């Protein structure tokens, strides 16, 4: 209760912290058992290009333009942060370089922070520390090169987090890390404060999943009792945090804008008017993760020994490694680490890393595949079984390639 009272005294100003995850995987081409040993291309260039061009025109370009406009209109008071994966950056360079230019323009405003993650959007933290550290370094280097920023804050793939990760990230020199504000880790505590992981100095920012998901998942949901979500209504909910918190962390996929929630449902109009409305309240402001971390003292320690993620109601890893296919597939990938790295072959190393992208394992998830339900997430396969077959055929071809067969 001491923590609570103390927090309240400090909770006068509320900072709204937007973080957008921006990612597209290199989807795989259907690969038959009969192609094992033929070393054909693993990636579906046509499909990847089509999807990228579609998402760029529906989301990345209009959303970037709007955010740039809002930053200018508010004289830089509107602020956001991004984590853009190396997988997406590579595809943007190839298929839609104007999006990279537009992110550069955003970076130059000073109101946009870029976060660090694994370059390949992988689950490497769970399987190989060495590989994890290398991928984080690759991403850090690329963000520095493109946007001239040295990230201070880290977010792991799918917001996968535990004490051990926090320790490692602290050791790697970061001052902040993001995680899901899951009920089972927070208990009675609020996600609207800054915390420390147990026995650690790094600062922990937690997603306010309710207010984040109101936009990311429920915005167009007609059966939702709060539908339609208007700017004044949403602003009231944020204002209500005043006196009860220092920060409202709104973490979501960038594709929320225009791709998951469609333009004709008003998602861009919502974003367009939100900053103005929120800034009308004198105690509100926008801040980036680094600013939140430097402005706010931690209110307590959070002990999170078990892995949490931002996925599904379970908030665990079952979406990626919950079934036997997923476990077999990912084990096969990491079993090749030594052979791949000692080959010294850049292309082989790069292909191996692209096969680590978490999406490949997500497509194999059978949790939602009942009653003909279409995956909540865009899935290029007809079934989780198809995705497993293709992945295993590719891994078996790749194994032969690594061994020079």
């Amino acid at each position, binding site marked *: 209760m001491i923590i609570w009272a103390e927090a309240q005294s400090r909770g006068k100003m509320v900072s709204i912290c937007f973080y957008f995850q921006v990612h597209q995987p290199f989807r795989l081409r259907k690969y*038959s058992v009969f192609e094992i040993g033929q070393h054909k291309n693993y990636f579906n260039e046509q499909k990847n290009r089509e999807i990228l061009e579609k998402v760029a025109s529906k989301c990345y370009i209009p959303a970037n333009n709007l955010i740039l406009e809002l930053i200018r209109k508010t004289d830089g008071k509107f602020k956001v942060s991004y984590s853009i994966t190396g997988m997406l950056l590579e595809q943007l360079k190839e298929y839609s370089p104007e999006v990279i230019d537009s992110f550069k323009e955003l970076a130059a405003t000073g109101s946009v922070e870029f976060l660090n993650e694994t370059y390949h959007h992988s689950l490497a933290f769970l399987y190989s520390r060495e590989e994890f550290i290398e991928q984080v370094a690759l991403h850090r280097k690329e963000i520095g090169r493109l946007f001239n920023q040295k990230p201070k804050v880290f977010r792991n793939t799918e917001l996968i987090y535990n004490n051990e990760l926090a320790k490692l990230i602290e050791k790697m020199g970061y001052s902040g890390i993001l995680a899901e504000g899951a009920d089972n880790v927070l208990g009675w505590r609020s996600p609207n404060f800054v915390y420390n992981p147990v026995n650690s100095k790094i600062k922990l920012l937690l997603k306010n999943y309710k207010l984040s998901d109101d936009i990311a998942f429920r915005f167009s949901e007609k059966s939702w009792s709060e539908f339609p979500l208007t700017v004044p209504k949403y602003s009231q909910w944020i204002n209500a945090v005043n006196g009860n918190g220092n920060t409202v962390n709104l973490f979501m996929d960038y594709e929320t804008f225009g791709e998951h929630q469609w333009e004709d449902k008003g998602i861009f109009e919502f974003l367009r008017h939100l900053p103005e409305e929120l800034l009308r309240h004198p105690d509100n402001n926008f801040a980036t993760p680094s600013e939140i971390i430097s402005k706010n003292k931690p209110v307590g320690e959070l002990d999170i020994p078990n892995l949490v993620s931002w996925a599904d109601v379970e908030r665990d890893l079952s979406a990626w490694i919950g*079934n*036997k*296919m997923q476990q077999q597939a990912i084990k096969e990938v990491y079993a090749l680490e030594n052979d791949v790295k000692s080959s010294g072959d850049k292309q082989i190393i790069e292909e191996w890393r692209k096969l680590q992208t978490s999406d490949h394992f997500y497509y194999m998830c059978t949790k939602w595949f*009942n009653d003909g339900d279409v995956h909540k997430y865009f899935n290029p396969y007809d079934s989780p079984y198809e995705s497993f077959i293709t992945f295993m055929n590719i891994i078996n071809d790749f194994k032969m390639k690594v061994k020079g067969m």
Partner: protein
Amino acid sequence: MKVLMFGWEFPPISSGGLGTACYGLTKALSRKGTDITFVLPYSSDQINADFAKFVSSSKIKIKKIKSIISPYMTSSSYSAERMKNPKKAIYGKTLFEEVYRYTISAEQIADEEEFDVVHCHDWMTFGAGIAASKRKNKPLVVHVHSTEFDRTGGNGINDYVYNLEKAGMQKADRIVAVSNYTKNMIVNHYGISQDKIDIVYNGVEDEFCCPENNFEIKKGCKVVLFLGRITLQKGPDYFIYAASRVLEKEKNVRFIVAGTGDMEPFIIEKAAEMGIADKVLFAGFLNKEDTMRAYKMADVYVMPSVSEPFGITALESVKNETPAIISNQSGVSEVLHHCLKVDFWDVNELSNKIISLLRYDALGSCIKENSSFEVSKINWDAAADKCLAVYDNLGRGAEQR
């Protein structure tokens, strides 16, 4: 509710899914308190022992007509059968005459029986159904388990059969289709309004499961199974082509073909021609116990049907914990998601999937786990409930009239 049902096969005198479906549905309807008189063409006194017990203790009455028709006979195979039957003198000259005989006996049965609705199963019974319905002025439900287009693959449609199917569909108050796939057939090929058609998916019996788990054949090799009539409709040729493709990559595999049919000689010759005769075993027609054993010993069940109105065998394989690869051109693919699916003509993809199941253990075990759960919800009780709803709506329609 009293139902007068016209069928044409019942286990064990059955050669396909129709007998299985009538048996499962009738039992479930009876458990729900429906009185059923089930009319069968008579060819033998054999009757499933389980069912006989069930019949004697429930509200089902079996009535037989003296005839030797069986559902998948062509007119020529009928003639052959007739020559074997010592009592041939009392039967008509052709299959179609038999159908006619079955039809005219329906009026007499209608006079003898009390019923609220007539429910008939597939074309050979449609004439009888129409006659009985007319005789007592009771509503008619025709249940379409397959169409002439499925059985012939669209080539060589028999006009007599087609016309009889169409007449039944037109005269019926409601049509029951075993899948959306079949519903589309009825709409597209018979010009019937889709509003007149209800979909009732087939089920599978819970106890359809072999308790054994130790098979000699499994020592050192894996088993891929085809089980069904060896006819064009079931795609046995695609199975045998795939077998040859699979054997290029995996040597320790045996392919079992269980069933009989007019394409059997062709398939046997093909296997020999492709040099895989030693890897393909022909098991002939299997009784229920051996059918379950075949599913249980198999590592993969393949149903490559060219046109499959439903495909209960896919559910039967799941009941025996064997993952299924089924053709997209099937009704069962609308209810079974935890399986692998292919277009029947895509032999390479079928082979890819067979090999994947043989090689990647996790694939089969995930499919088994999830499909067992899924199939537990696809049962005859659910089908019976839907049929009862169809009957109820008929009643309501009649009152409004």
